[in-house]
C-alpha cells in the first residue's frame, strides 16, 4: 500500500468555472495498492472536485475535446497520456482552448 499522493491541480481557460472558479487546488489522493495514473485521477476529480455538469469536463474515460492536459509543464501526449503514473508533488494542469480574438 503506497502513501497518499500530494498533487497540485490547476484549471484554466474557462475550465475553472466548473470548479467554483478556483484555478488552483492542492489535493491529496489516498494511498492505494498500486500507483495512481491520470485515468484514475480523472475519476477522482469527477467524484471529489467536480461540482456540476461533468460532461463539460469528461467524456468517457478521458477529458472532453478542447481541453489540453499538461503534466509538469509538458503536453500529456509526451508523458504517456492516461497511463502516466503520478509522482508525489506533480503539477497537472487542465486548460480549455481559447478561441476568442
Amino acid at each position, binding site marked *: 500500500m503506497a502513501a497518499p499522493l500530494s498533487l497540485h491541480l490547476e484549471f484554466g*481557460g*474557462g475550465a475553472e468555472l466548473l470548479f467554483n472558479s478556483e484555478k488552483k487546488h492542492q489535493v491529496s489522493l489516498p494511498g492505494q495498492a498500486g500507483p495512481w495514473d491520470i485515468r484514475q485521477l480523472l475519476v477522482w476529480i469527477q467524484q471529489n472536485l467536480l461540482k456540476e455538469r461533468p460532461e463539460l469536463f469528461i467524456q468517457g474515460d478521458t477529458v*472532453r475535446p478542447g481541453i489540453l492536459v499538461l503534466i509538469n509543464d509538458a503536453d500529456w*501526449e509526451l508523458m504517456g497520456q492516461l497511463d502516466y503514473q503520478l509522482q508525489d508533488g506533480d503539477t497537472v494542469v487542465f486548460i480549455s482552448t481559447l*478561441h476568442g*480574438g
Partner: protein
Amino acid sequence: SLTAKSSLSNEDIMRYSRQLLLPEFGVKGQINLSKTSVLVVGCGGLGCPLAQYLAAAGVGRLGLIDYDEVELNNLHRQVLHREENQGQAKALSAASAIKSLNSTVQCCPYQLQLSPENALDLIQQYDIVADCSDNVPTRYLVNDACVLSGKPLVSASALRMEGQLTIYNYKGGPCYRCLYPAPPPPDTVTNCSDGGVLGVVPGIMGCLQALEVFKIASGQGSSLHQQLMMFDAQDARFRSIKLRPRQSDCAVCGQNPSVTKLVDYESFCGSAATDKCRKLNL
C-alpha cells in the same frame, strides 16, 4: 509576390534606423521583412495590434481579412478603428489606419468571410498566416488551409483575462488538429461576446504574435516552435509548455491524411463561423 528588394532606400534607413541597429536583425533582417507577406485573419482585438506593429516595422505586404463592421463595443480593444469608423468594414478601417502609419507597406483589405471556397486561393498568396479569428470553425479552416498550402501559422487567442499563443505547421511541430483532433462540444465554447475580454489582453497576445511573425519573417525563426505560451492577466504570469510533435495519425498533416481538401467546418464543429451567435441549428 513581392518585388525582390536587395537594398534599402535612404528613407527606409531613416525610418527603420532603430531596428537596423540590432545585431539580431540589421539590414538583412529588414530586407527579409520587406520581402515577406503576411495574411491577417481577423481585424479584431488580436489583428489590430498585430497589423499595427508589423506595418510599423516594415513588413512587405499585409492582407487584412474581416467580413464584419466596426461596432461601438469593439473599440475597447480593437485599437486601429476609430469612433468615426463605426458601421464601416473592419478590413477597410484597419487598412486606412495602417496606411497613415506606414504608406510604404502594401496593404490588401478583404471584406469577406474566410471560407472553404476562398481560403486556399488567398493563403497561397502569402508567406505567413496569423490567425486572429474569434471562432472554432475558422480556426480549423485556417489550420487545414495552411497545412495544405505548406504555410506556417502563428495563432493567438484571448478570452476574459487569459491568452494563448502557438505556432502550427512549423519545423516538425504540430498542427491545430494534432492537438485538437475533435472539435469541442458547442456547449463548451465561450466567445468574447458572451464571456467578455479585457481589451489589453488581446493587445498583449497580438503583440507577442507579431513578434513571432517578425522573427520568422526576418530569418531568425520563431522560438515558440512546438510550444504553447499561456498568459494569465490576473496574476501577470506567463507559462510555456512543451507540446507534442506533428502526429503521424493526424487527419490533415499525418502520414495518411483523410482531409485532403477543405471541408465544411461549420458542420464539422456544429457552430457558426462568427462569435456572435454561437450555435448553428443543424
